């Protein structure tokens, strides 16, 4: 399977930033510091369970 990580990143950014570009930048930075570079993931990226696990924790806090 592929594309789940990109989908999760987009969901996190849109739900937390709510169209606020400054906040979207901060959330992307938080992801970078977690070791997840949002720019590296595309709809074709494989579903890495380790990355998905990190993103699931973040989504739970929304």
């Amino acid at each position, binding site marked *: 399977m592929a594309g789940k990580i990109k989908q999760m990143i987009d969901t996190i950014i849109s739900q937390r930033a709510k169209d606020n570009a400054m906040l979207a930048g901060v959330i992307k930075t938080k992801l970078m*510091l977690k070791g997840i570079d949002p720019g590296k993931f595309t709809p074709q990226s494989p579903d890495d369970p380790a990355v998905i696990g990190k993103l699931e924790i973040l989504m739970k806090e929304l």
Partner: protein
Amino acid sequence: MNIKTAFSVKPEPQEAVADIQSQLKDFDTRLIIFFASSSFSPDLIALGMEEAFPCAETFGCSTAGEIVTGKMLTKSVVAMAFNKKSIKKAKVEVMDLDKESKRVFNSFQRHFNKPMAKMSPKKYLGIILVDGLCCKEELIMDKIGDLTNVTFIGGSAGDDLKFEKTHVYANGKSYSNAAVLALLEPATEFSFIKTQSFCQLPKKLEVTKANEFTREVFEFNGKPAAVAYAEALGVSIEEAKKRFMHNPIGLVFEDEPFVRSPQQVKGDGMVFYCSVKEGMELSLLESTDIIASTKKSLDEAEAALGGISGIVNFNCILRTLELGQKGLSDSYGKLFDKTPTVGFSTYGEQYIGHINQTATMIVFK
């Protein structure tokens, strides 16, 4: 004036507190943040500040040098006082680093009657002061970042380069292996400065083997870390060890470096002052002009806010050491001579995450 600073270089805690109290005697202090040299007894300075300002929330930490309006100091206590017109509401909490952080956030939620996840980062700001020898700043900042969009900014407490024990202070008590978190609702606009004085070099170092919890990197680009770092600089490992302060590495995102400073070569790996994770692509950085870049950041913040009434500066000890080596400490202090300022030389800075060789600042309009 709704934000006022005071400082004392009197050596005894009781005398220093009395000195600060007298400088703030006509001010309606509701919140006070203070930074004290490790030359002061932690228990006495924390209790003294609490007793001197009974109507205020008091919090702070030990330092590796202090900053106050126009000056860089040592063996002093510096304080910034806020009245009701500058801070509407504040809550100070202590987090035991071995325990769950949710209790602190639940307390904030009760005090402000709002879930942390719903608080606007434009209306609220958080200050975090952490035991500077705990090595847990990344975990704390990561957790805070998951729970809220409110910006928490701050520094890791110091002990004047003894690296024995650091302290954070809250409402009359001193703590180690702890963090003090203050959630504020300022009455004025505020913004943040994150400034580091480095340019990005083209060499990249990808972390291929690391232990993020011990802040050790074993391999960059599939080679022993020390070897790869020295090769990137084009020097021997022995020479590379002398370049740590001048050439740290950074996680660069949209041209903004989040600096990771090397601490030592261990075997053929490297230990850093903050963690790096496997898979991160890091850039080699080169030191530039601290005075010029800090002035530029201050000027930009002043222009954006239309004036500044107070600054809290969390300035990395490595920047302080570099300024001292270059004879620029006075020049750095003078960057802050127009505006009420307090700050300290930290063992690490907090802003979004945990970083090194950076100054993070709160700027109040």
